[in-house]
C-alpha cells in the first residue's frame, strides 16, 4: 500500500476511529471522510463503472463526485461532504451501484 501523499498538521484534536473495508483507520475529529482517507494512504477510493479506472478525491468541495464511497451501507456518498464519526463503516466502491429489488 502506497503511503499517503499528505502530511498531517499536528493538532490537539481528539482522535476517532472508523473502518475502511473492515480495516481500522484513525482520523482526527472534524476531518471529512475524504480528508481522513487521503491522509490514511494513497490507494484509490473507487473504480469507475464505465472504464474501471481508479479514482481518488479531487475537488474536496462537493463538485467533482470523484470521492464517492459507501458509508454505513449507503452507496455513492460524497465523502468530502461528510464528517467522519467514530465507528463509521466506509467501503470503497467498485463499478456502478446496484439496487436491490424486493420481490413480492
Amino acid at each position, binding site marked *: 500500500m502506497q503511503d499517503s501523499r499528505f502530511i498531517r498538521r499536528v493538532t490537539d484534536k481528539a482522535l476517532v476511529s472508523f473502518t475502511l473495508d473492515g480495516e481500522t483507520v484513525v482520523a482526527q475529529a472534524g476531518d471529512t471522510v475524504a480528508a481522513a482517507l487521503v491522509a490514511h494512504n494513497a490507494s484509490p477510493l473507487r473504480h469507475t463503472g464505465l472504464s474501471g479506472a481508479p479514482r481518488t478525491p479531487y475537488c474536496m468541495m462537493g463538485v467533482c463526485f470523484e470521492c464517492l464511497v459507501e458509508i454505513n451501507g449507503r452507496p455513492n456518498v460524497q465523502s468530502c461532504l461528510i464528517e467522519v464519526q467514530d465507528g463509521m463503516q466506509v467501503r470503497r466502491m467498485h463499478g456502478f451501484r446496484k*439496487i436491490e*429489488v424486493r420481490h413480492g
Partner: protein
Amino acid sequence: MQNTRADTTIIGGGVVGLSIALGLLRAGEKIHVLDGADHDPRASLGNFGLTWLQGKGASYAPYTRRTWQAITAWPDFAATLQDLSGIDVAHHATGGYEFFTDPDELDGMAADLAAQSNTLGPGFSYEVLDNAALKQALPGIGDTVIGATYTPHDGHVNPLRLLSALRKALQNGNGRISNGWVVQDIRRNGDDGFTLTNAKGDVHQTGRVVLCAGLGAAALGERLGFRATVRPQRGELLITEKLETRLPFLSSTLRQVDEGGIQIGGTKSDGGLDDREAIEKMRFLARHAVAVWPALKDVNVVRSWGALRVMTEDGYPVYARAPDGSEAYLVTCHSGVTLAPLHATLLADWINQTSAAPDLEAFSDARF
C-alpha cells in the same frame, strides 16, 4: 457578412431538420442546414429518446399508421446511421409499458389500444395487465400500480447520440451545416427561390427551403404563407446516477439509458418559452418513479432539466407545401425521434415529388 448559396436549405438543425436533410442528401441533393443559436429552445437536446407507438393517434388513424411505419423502419435506420456516421444510437425495441394508478385511465388507454389495433391490423399487438398479471411480469412493481398496458413495438434510443449521428452522417456525405445562423427574414425571389438573411447581415440564396425550426417555425412560417401554429409545452426530466442493476422494463416515463442512468420524465405544463424546471414537478417525478419501482427510493438524482416540446394544436405533425405553390415546405412535429426514419426517407420523395411520394394530405397546415 457572407454570401452563400444552396439548392436546398433546411432551416433548423435539430433531429427533424437533420433527418430530412439526410434523406434529401441521400436522394442526391446538395443541402445546406442553417442551425440557430445555442440559447434557442432545443427539443433535440432535452427530449426523452423514446421510439413510441403505444396510444399514438388512437383517434387519428393517419398518425397511427405513419408512426407504425416509422417504428417498423427504426432497426434498419439505426443500422444505416451506424454505417454513415460510425455512431451507435443505442436503439432498442424492448417493448414498452404504461403504468396506471387510476382504473379509469387504464380503461381509457385500453380503449385507445383497441382503436390502434383496429387501424393497424394483425401486425400490431398489445396487452392489458391487471395488478396480478403485472406483478407476475414485473415482480418488484409498486403496490399502488393497479395495472399496465404493454406493446412489444415501443423502444428507445440515446437521443444525444442520435443528434450526433445525424450531424456526422450529413457531414460525411458533404452536407453543409452552419451553426449560429439565425434566420431573421425569408423573401421569395419572384419565381426563383428565396433569399434568407440573418442579424449579422449574412445573405443566403436557395432554390428550395424546408422549414424545420421547431418553435421558431411560427414566426418564419408566416412569411412563407403557413399558419404554423406551434406552441411550447414544457416537460421536466430527472436523471439518476448510473446503476449496474438493469431496470427490467421501459415505460413512457421511466427508462434506463444505455449508459446506466435512469431517466424519469413525462410532466406537461404550459408556461410559454420558460424552460426552467419547477421543483414541484421534479418532486412529482421522483415520487412517481418510486411508486412504480420502489427499489429506486434512495437512488441519487444527479441532473434535472426542463425542455420544451413543439406542439401543434392537435398534437399531430404538419407536413405542408407553401400555399402559393413555391418550393417552400414546413415540417413540424412533437415526435421527431420516433418519426426520424420516415423523415429521412419518405419526406425526400414527398419534397422531390417522385413516384414514391407519400400522401400526406392528412397532415396539412390548412387543417387548423
